[in-house]
């Protein structure tokens, strides 16, 4: 047993920055009343169940992939972020990264 206080758990809260971002976007939308949390949990559990059929989920990266998938589907369905728009903006971000010199802040053009 280690002596370190377990309060400062060794594993980071969010392993990847995008895990934190997708979590925050979801919580912000819920707090703004864009959807009920129980509705979210129901959709999310369906995604987890579906993805868990293909392989056993370890609760790490695959968990947040399922989270993102659920959020994308919900926002597309609500018309807030249609799939085509998401793809276009995603491509624009990719382009921005690939054309911004290393070390400079990346902005959408």
């Amino acid at each position, binding site marked *: 047993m280690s002596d370190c*206080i*377990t*309060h400062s*758990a060794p*594993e980071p*809260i*969010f392993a*990847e*920055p*995008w895990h*934190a*971002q*997708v*979590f*925050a*976007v979801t*919580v*912000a*939308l*819920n*707090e*703004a009343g*864009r959807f009920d*949390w*129980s509705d*979210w*949990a*129901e959709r*999310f*559990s369906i995604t*987890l169940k579906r993805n*868990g059929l293909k392989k*056993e*989920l*370890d*609760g*790490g990266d695959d*968990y*947040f992939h399922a989270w*993102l998938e659920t959020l*994308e589907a919900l*926002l597309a369905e609500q018309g*807030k*972020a249609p799939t085509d*728009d*998401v*793809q276009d*903006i*995603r491509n624009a*971000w*990719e382009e921005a*990264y*690939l*054309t*911004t*010199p*290393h*070390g*400079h802040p990346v902005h*959408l053009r």
Partner: protein
Amino acid sequence: MPHDDHDHPHALLPPEPALRVKALETILTRKGLIDPAALDEIIDTYQNKIGPQNGAHVVAKAWSDPDFKAALLEDATSVVADLGYYGRQGEHMVVVENTPEQHNMVVCTLCSCYPWPLLGIPPGWYKSDAYRARAVREPRKVLAEFGVTLPEDTSVRVWDSTAEIRYLVLPMRPEGSEGLSEEELAALVIRDSMIGTGLPKVPS
């Protein structure tokens, strides 16, 4: 595409899901549906302000103050809200007490519902298929893997969380903790002891 790490001609491309999240953020921000500053605040809150120390505070207070404990077991949601810990997703919190007769353990078989205001974001194993599937089916075996062996005559009750109801285990106060201050007691309350997959530390 392989990347030459010591010679980036351009900014390092984030992984695919990160690009997709950025796209969502951009679209929602442009529509005024989210505020980037609010996102930073949410991340800061969950990374730095909300965590098992909140739950440990509640447990230590319950160990120290019988009236508080009685109120907590009666209506945890309002009692912890008075301490500033409230469910931002509108959930109810229920505290289940461990006794020599019954050990409690918490799972969310559907997804990963968890008492965020008291414990923060759940650890990876809580979200894993393995834990979610096995906690209900073979709790004693799972407990043993966490290093928890209970007396034969202690029953194990597993509580399945939902979006509406999140459970926190009130562990038994460890022997040898008489005379400790609330703060010293809180230091004994490890996260897993409030999920039921661990026991509080024993004072040295």
